């Protein structure tokens, strides 16, 4: 059976800490250990930061909806915003050997999650789907 949690927040950076606390609890329910929970929180934080920075260009008070689905085999997240649609082909991280500030958010998201998919071709907003397999010994 799927358990669903929907988080609604506005694009205000101080709310990221609230989102992190909520996602931490979701991960706990899904049976992840502390280290994996930290990594998943990081991925969600980076994704929300990107929405604030790129989709909303730093404008506060805009909608971010995070749907968390605890499925028997995996933990899924869908992030939706109503900001400027991203050109999916241009979403990439910087090469790690180029040591400079910035450009690591997408790399962190893709290295932590098992699957990351950005919706393409939307007229308004963005939709990011990602999941991580639950530990085999997690209580389903």
């Amino acid at each position: 059976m799927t358990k669903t949690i929907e988080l609604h927040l506005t694009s205000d950076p101080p709310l990221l800490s609230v989102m992190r606390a909520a996602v931490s609890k979701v991960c706990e329910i899904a049976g992840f250990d502390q280290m994996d929970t930290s990594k998943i929180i990081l991925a969600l934080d980076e994704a929300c930061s990107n929405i604030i920075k790129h989709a909303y260009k730093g404008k506060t008070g805009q909608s971010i909806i995070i749907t968390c689905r605890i499925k028997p085999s995996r933990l899924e997240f869908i992030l939706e915003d109503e900001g400027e649609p991203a050109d999916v082909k241009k979403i990439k991280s910087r090469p790690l050997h180029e040591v400079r500030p910035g450009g690591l958010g997408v790399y962190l998201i893709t290295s932590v999650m098992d699957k990351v998919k950005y919706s393409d071709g939307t007229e308004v907003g963005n939709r990011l789907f990602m999941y991580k397999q639950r530990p085999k010994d997690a209580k389903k």
Partner: protein
Amino acid sequence: MSLKITSKVENQTALLSIAGEVDMCSSPEARKEIAALVKKEIPRIVIDLSGVGYMDSSGVATLIEGLQMCNKYDGKLVVAGLRDNVREVFELTKLDKIFEIYEDAEAALTE
């Protein structure tokens, strides 16, 4: 969430201690403090992260910026006291190969 940041300079070494969660909201505070030390061209800057419970890529970017500014005047910026989850961010981004990382501030200061 604001950070708690303290700094002291002794014998040409600065110890900057940061506590709290370093994210896109709070990293500008850390950036400002590091920039102030760099501006004085302090030869060795030790950043104690033992009080940091969370760090995202904006925190990492702040440290890279500090490291690069230090390199420009042949100074050194090192980090100490990384908790497991913060160390993991360094490892994921391969920055554990770029930064000198010490177990704690005391070890970094006595180096």
